[in-house]
């Protein structure tokens, strides 16, 4: 596979007053050009840390990182911060969960979109503003001309997320990181933003990493899904394969817990009991075992390694779904 982003044996941990917090553990992911990969997990599963580490954004003195991240032939993990920065915008770009705080509140929308065009592509201010107008139209903002002159507070959450997307795609990135891009939005606006991302990806041919806690969001928007739990990838498969034939009990529990529109009226939802284990105390055994309805003694004693089905479906479980005990 001709990979655009290749993450190999990535570990990220943070020094905290309570001890070493292992946020990401032994993650391997390959992403080809134009591919869309969903990273799914609960709050605290390490999905945001993984995507930030993949962008080379975590470099503080309390961050410990091992493993390699190679983007488009460049090893980001061996670079200094300014060198990593040179890939932002044209190489990779990011949109965030909270479009309210990701934009500068005291600068006009036009200036914020123009910024990267001037800085990265060396456009003149006039050309950049003209291109900003086109970008706003591309992300389907009505009355783009007047929006250029507006400040973020004058726009709704959905409109701000469209502006964020316009900024992210302004320099034609090869890879877009979308970190919970629709979590703060209404369902109606979520549907619009997901549709926009799908169309833009088709038109521009960019790859996307879609980080979300909602399996419903990845279902129609990704080619592959990585499910994360307690810092590890616990299942990885093509999206259709994952939903048709899931192996990992955690993925099944996550899917069952979603309030679904075709859920029978009045029927009780299936919640996952308990919560994520303490990230400063990984202990022994499978991290999901205490919440797993299929757990056996072995799960408490040994940590499962990633197993591979012949078709490449990866999972981290001793007793996967679909195999007799």
């Amino acid at each position, binding site marked *: 596979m001709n990979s655009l982003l290749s993450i190999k044996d990535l570990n990220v941990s943070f020094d905290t007053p309570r001890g070493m917090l292992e946020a990401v553990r032994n993650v391997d992911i390959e992403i080809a050009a134009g591919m869309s990969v969903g990273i799914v997990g609960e709050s605290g599963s390490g999905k945001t840390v993984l995507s930030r580490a993949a962008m080379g954004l975590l470099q503080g003195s309390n961050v410990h990182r091992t493993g390699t991240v190679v983007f488009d032939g460049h090893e980001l993990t061996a670079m200094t911060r300014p060198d990593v920065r040179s890939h932002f915008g044209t190489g990779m770009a990011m949109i965030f969960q909270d479009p309210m705080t990701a934009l500068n509140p005291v600068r006009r929308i036009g200036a914020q979109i123009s910024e990267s065009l001037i800085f990265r592509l060396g456009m003149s201010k006039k050309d950049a503003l003209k291109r900003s107008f086109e970008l706003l139209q591309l992300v389907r903002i009505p009355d783009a001309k007047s929006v250029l002159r507006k400040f973020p507070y004058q726009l709704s959450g959905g409109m701000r997320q469209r502006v964020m997307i316009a900024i992210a795609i302004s320099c034609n990135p090869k890879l877009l990181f979308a970190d919970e891009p629709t979590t703060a939005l209404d369902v109606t606006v979520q549907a619009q933003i997901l549709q926009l991302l799908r169309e833009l990806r088709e038109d521009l041919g960019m790859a996307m990493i879609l980080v979300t806690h909602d399996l419903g969001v990845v*279902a129609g928007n990704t080619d592959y899904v990585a499910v994360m739990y307690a810092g590890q990838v616990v299942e990885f498969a093509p999206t259709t394969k994952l939903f048709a034939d899931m192996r990992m009990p955690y993925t099944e529990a996550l899917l069952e*817990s979603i309030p679904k529109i075709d859920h029978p*009226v009045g029927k009780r939802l299936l919640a996952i009991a308990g919560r994520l284990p303490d990230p400063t105390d990984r202990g022994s055994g499978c991290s999901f075992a205490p919440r797993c309805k299929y757990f056996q003694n072995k799960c408490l004693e040994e940590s499962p390694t990633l197993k591979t089905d012949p078709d490449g479906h990866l999972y981290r479980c001793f007793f996967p779904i679909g195999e007799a005990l």
Partner: protein
Amino acid sequence: MAGSGIAHMRNSTDVVLTVRDLVVEFRLSKDRVVKAVSGLSFDVIKGEVLAIVGESGCGKTTLGRAILQLPPPNSGEVIFEGTDLTQLPKDNLRSARTAIQMIFQDPISSLDPRMTVKQLIDEPLEIWQRGDEQERSVRINELLNNVGLDSELVLDRHAYEFSGGQCQRISIARALALDPRMLICDEPVSALDVSIQAQIINLLQDMHDRYGLSIIFISHDLAVVKAISNRVMVMYLGKICEVAPPEILYAKPAHHYTRALLNSVPIPDPTRQTRTELLQGEPPSPMNPPTGCRFRTRCAAASVLCTQQEPQLREVSPGQFVACHHPII
């Protein structure tokens, strides 16, 4: 579509809350008025879970708060157990309010960060002098255990030490402290992970069953309320679009807006990705709502009639009321 009317009001002796012609407006300046809730009527029967669903800005939060007179509505009646809360003097209103408790969207910021869990739950008990310290302490333990927290472990900790789901459990324990008869839950699970949403919805269901509560559950997501509600009311720009029991509303929505909301919910199955017509754009400004039907500017079925005349709620099938000139039949 979004319109007025009282056809859906029930004439039952079991009605605990009746809201009639409620109007809430916020004056921004001399000639700019936000029309948040515009002449809205509904009722809640004892033990019922009424879901109020709509997009951001439709007035659902304002409506929930106006029931508690936070702030008092501009006009209209809010009759709870026979008493019109809008007419009560301040002191009587305070004691009447103990029977209606609220749960907010952001569980972490709605709890005082300087108070321990024990203090948080003791506060309402102490203010209303429910028992001596010993009795209150027993009550606090009981409440915490009922919402699924281990009281011994959590009593002396602060809200910031807990996850969002646990904070929401603490909020629920606090809301239940004064034995309310009604809970108003304003987007209680929107800030939570999907895996935790189910836990909290199930907990609210349990508390509903255990204490015989009536619940108003406000949400923007029709999927979230399906498991818990007995009646669903869809709102748009301060008006009611449709009121129906969930069995009917999800299977046969009569309002175009209800159908659009249903189509927006993501389906966690890659083989069933229907690319139906999505609702385009965003709601118009509540400062200057469209004439006639307020939904007409985004509605595919809108006609000239919709611009001229506001639709009234009417019954299209037993228990299903819709305010639309051209309902989906």
